[in-house]
């Protein structure tokens, strides 16, 4: 395995290295899990998570980041949403080409196609939401507790329920507007 990028810590950055290590250990697995859910591609999720950690490492002083978790998840999910948008565009092009070539799905693959279509719709609607709403829905779907969600989106824990309810309502509204009443 070839490391994609090596980070050289400056001499004065040893303490920052420890901060980074702690952040990595605490958040990397969940970042990958959430990004995998969002992008549908484990390798892409790991790549995005690694890029975000590289960005974190390049910050002059990590210790100044009071809210490392908030920064990490925000940047990671924004990058994931960008990837979903790009994939959506690519998928439209591929679908158009597929139709032009008259390719037909085999009967055995129908379930798989329907499942993929449903995932693509969910990702597309997520990508159209405000990043904070998408962040909340993804992290909550991953089982994150309200207290941790509050830290990530930097609100009071008592506000998480309201934000989550609004995000779900907005998600459903957009989903119905695009794909009909059946959610």
């Amino acid at each position, binding site marked *: *395995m070839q*490391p994609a990028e*090596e*980070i050289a*810590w400056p001499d004065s950055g*040893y303490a920052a*290295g*420890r901060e*980074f*290590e702690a952040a*990595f*250990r*605490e958040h*990397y*697995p*969940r970042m*990958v*899990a959430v990004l*995998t*859910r*969002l992008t*549908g591609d*484990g*390798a892409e*999720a*790991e*790549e995005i*998570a*690694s890029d975000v*950690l590289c960005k974190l490492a390049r910050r002059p002083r990590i210790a100044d980041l009071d809210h490392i978790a908030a920064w990490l998840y925000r940047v990671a999910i924004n990058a994931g949403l960008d990837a979903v948008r790009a994939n959506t565009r690519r998928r439209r092009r591929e679908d158009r080409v597929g139709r032009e070539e008259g390719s037909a799905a085999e009967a055995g693959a129908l379930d798989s196609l329907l*499942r*993929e279509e*449903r*995932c693509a719709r*969910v*990702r597309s609607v997520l990508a159209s939401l405000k990043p904070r709403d998408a962040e909340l*829905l*993804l992290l*909550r*779907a*991953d*089982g994150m*507790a*309200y207290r941790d969600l509050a830290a990530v989106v930097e609100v009071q824990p*008592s*506000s*998480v*329920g*309201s*934000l*989550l*309810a*609004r995000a*779900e*309502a907005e*998600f*459903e509204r957009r*989903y119905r507007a695009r794909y009909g009443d059946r*959610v």
Partner: protein
Amino acid sequence: MSRCWSDGELRAWLDRELGEPDGADFELHLAKCADCAARRQVLEDRSKRIGVLMSSLTEAVPAARVTAIPARRPSWRWTGVPAAIAAGVTLAFLLTPRAQHPVVPTPRAPTAPEVPAVKPAIAPPPVARARPRVVPPAKARPQTNGDYYLALDDDPIDTGVVMRVALDGNVQADVIFDSQGRPRAIRPVKESAQGERR
């Protein structure tokens, strides 16, 4: 409790994120307030529908890629032991002086047996003297110490993140972590003559 609850509070109650006293109050209120009961039903149905959609994202991903995140932060103590053992074995391997390949002395060419001084009638054919074979000095093997990672288990490593970590004392090592944050391979960091670690 007399007041009606907001959607946010109802949503938190559905997720069991309200404290116990609040939850008990809510259930008492819910039995009396039709409006709150209706809103709770709407929120619950919506939450279930969206939960199904969000969970479909996980179903579509290969199972090996998605693992449940433990609620508690995993203990890292157990990883220290194999990492320390692996680092010790690697360091011992690296620091042990290698025996150079000895230069094998060329065996002397067999000499012709002594012939008695009696001059034969026919002179014997001259014995060809074997030329001594020159053995080139053994080339020094390229130093590969520290260029390879030592796997910490037998599972294949597809992708991962390389991170430099401090072991005991002043020893550092590059460790490959997989997507679940597990250390999978280790490589000690050597300090070069110029003082830079590599």
